[in-house]
């Protein structure tokens, strides 16, 4: 089976600024493929090129077998798209929005009725079909937007930060829907900056400053991490982090709530150094434990290794 999406050296420049820099990857049919990175990393620009909204400056990309540069008409019939902004019409009712997009995608007759009912049921909006979209809670709106994006049963679905601003419960619910779609064979390309969301993806591409810096399964990405990470709990996190600034064994330290996550070169040596330094600074250490790296730790480490800074 050919790849659903095949991207080679895709580049987009805006004047002197390179928003997407020679990105290459392939997505298999039925895969949930995640794009992870801070705002401004180039995720949205990449998606806009893949959906035919933006013309690539360089490189090639095939989506569902169509060249995104000049087979846009055929391309558009085969994809669904949902953007980070809620982009249905707030002043139309739920049903009117569905009808509009059905018309635009050529879904008519008995298929229209079937698809409309399916979307309403999927989004749990059957009872609210005549309500103005503006009056719905954000989580419901996003479900409707997803429904409108898959009305025409596209083989490939693009989701650009679909859950931004949505509460965790609705987010979870939304991901159930995405899994269901993927199980039926839909290829999903989704961008996010929620790290915990990225864990749901089959494979993950990490982007920073327009470049693809890593691409693998989430577990494999975490396994790549060789440096251990310590969680250090103290009585005063900000003062502690300041005190630890010049400890040689520390690669990177960051605050996570009241605790610090500290990436170190050597676990045993670092433990001792940290204990000593903090005691010297008059801080009380509650505990120091080794923790498994999160995707965020992986991301930060990868960016470090590349010698760059995280934008955003």
């Amino acid at each position, binding site marked *: 089976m050919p790849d659903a999406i095949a991207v080679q050296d895709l580049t987009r420049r805006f004047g002197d600024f390179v928003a997407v820099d020679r990105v290459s990857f392939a997505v298999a049919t039925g895969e949930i493929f995640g794009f992870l990175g801070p705002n401004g990393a180039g995720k949205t620009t990449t998606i*806009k090129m893949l*959906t*035919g*909204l*933006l*013309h690539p400056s360089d490189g090639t990309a095939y989506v569902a077998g169509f060249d995104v540069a000049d087979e846009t*008409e055929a391309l*558009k*019939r085969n*994809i669904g*798209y949902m*953007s980070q*902004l*809620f*982009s*249905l*019409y*707030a*002043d*139309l009712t739920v049903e*009117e929005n569905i*009808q*509009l*997009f*059905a*018309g*635009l*995608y*050529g879904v*008519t007759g008995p298929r229209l009725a079937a698809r409309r009912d399916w979307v309403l049921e999927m989004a749990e909006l059957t009872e609210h079909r005549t309500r103005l979209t503006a009056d719905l809670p954000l989580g419901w709106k996003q479900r409707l937007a997803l429904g409108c994006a898959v009305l025409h049963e596209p083989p490939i679905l*693009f989701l650009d930060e679909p859950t931004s601003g949505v509460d965790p419960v609705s987010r979870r619910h939304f991901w159930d829907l995405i899994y269901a779609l993927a199980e039926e064979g839909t290829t999903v390309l989704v961008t996010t900056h929620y790290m915990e969301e990225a864990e749901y993806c089959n494979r993950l591409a990490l982007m920073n400053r327009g470049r693809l810096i890593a691409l693998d399964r989430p577990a494999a990405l975490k396994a790549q991490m060789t440096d251990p990470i310590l969680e250090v709990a103290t009585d005063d996190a900000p003062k502690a982090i300041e005190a630890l600034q010049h400890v040689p064994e520390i690669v990177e330290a960051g605050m996570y709530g009241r605790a610090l996550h500290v990436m170190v070169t050597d676990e045993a040596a670092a433990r001792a150094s940290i204990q000593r330094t903090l005691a010297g600074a008059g801080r009380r250490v509650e505990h120091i434990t080794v923790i498994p790296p999160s995707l965020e730790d992986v991301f930060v480490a990868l960016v470090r290794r590349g010698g760059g800074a995280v934008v955003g």
Partner: protein
Amino acid sequence: MNLHLLRIREMVKKELRQLFRDVRTRGLIFVSPIIQLVLFGYAVNTDIRNTTMVVVDHDQTAEARALVDAFTASGYFRVVERSVRPAALVAALDRGDAEVGLEIPVHFARDLAADGPAHVQLIVDGTNSNTGTVALGYATRIMQRYAAEHTPGRTAAGVDLRVRAWYNPNLESRVYNVPGVIGVLVLLMCLLLTALAVVRERELGTLDQLMVSPLTPAELMLGKTLPVAMIGLIDMATITVVAILWFHIPFRGSVLVLLPAALMYIVAGLSVGLFISTISKTQQEAFMTMFLFLLPSIILSGFFYPIRSMPAFFRTITIANPVRHFLEVVRAVFLKGAGFEALWHQFVLLAVLASLMLGVAIWRFPKTIGR
């Protein structure tokens, strides 16, 4: 061009739903024609009726009173103040209480009866040059007639000008202004409803959602503009009916002449609206651009500032203004019953301008949505 009827139909349906659901747009569509009709039917009035007048009569004779009566009987003048003090006249004009002052000296009646010419002083407030000019003309004519009636035999028979005004025999400015509202209103609708609607979709991100669908830019253009064209035509019909039934404006021509001109004009207006949407990032910018476009187009259209009186430079510019040509057609059709043979060159210019503007819109519009 590959147009898909179903997609256009859905877009038109969606646009109409949005247009009529929004309170503001509904107000714009229904209320603004009424406001404009009232304003231009009643307020924009250059007719001289009841011009305010102050009279200082030093003579206090029957003849003097007859002269004042001649003024008031004409219907053009209304006496608001009578006095015997010249200072009252000055004060009334200064305050703006009166626009015309008539001072009749002592011995007026005596001089009129005798050989010597009787003098009166007439003072016109020129602040409003327009009404000033007209009032001065009327006053002069009233006094000539008065002289002819009161001193028979002494005025020699001369050349007697009999003026007949065609198309608008009572010279009412409303007859000229009300049909003009059609041109202004239709343009306003075309600009506001297209430019703002497109830019709003861009601001909200719904434009992207449309552009990832199979909808083509041409279909989007049609979907956006067809409903507005319909509203424009409905507004036009409404104003025409109100003009005829309420304001009693004569409609002497044929709708079949008006309609093709209106369609070309609407195409021109919609094209400008689309063009503005391509150069504006926000609704705010679109609104300002529209204002900057609308202002000169209306001022240089002859809507209420006569083109003939403009300096040559501005007169030349008006040739590129579709509003001017459309207004000429509308007024000629309403008042003169003109047909194609009298209006062919307005039609040619409208056609040329509309196609030019449409060309620019078709060229720019697809570039600025999406890619």
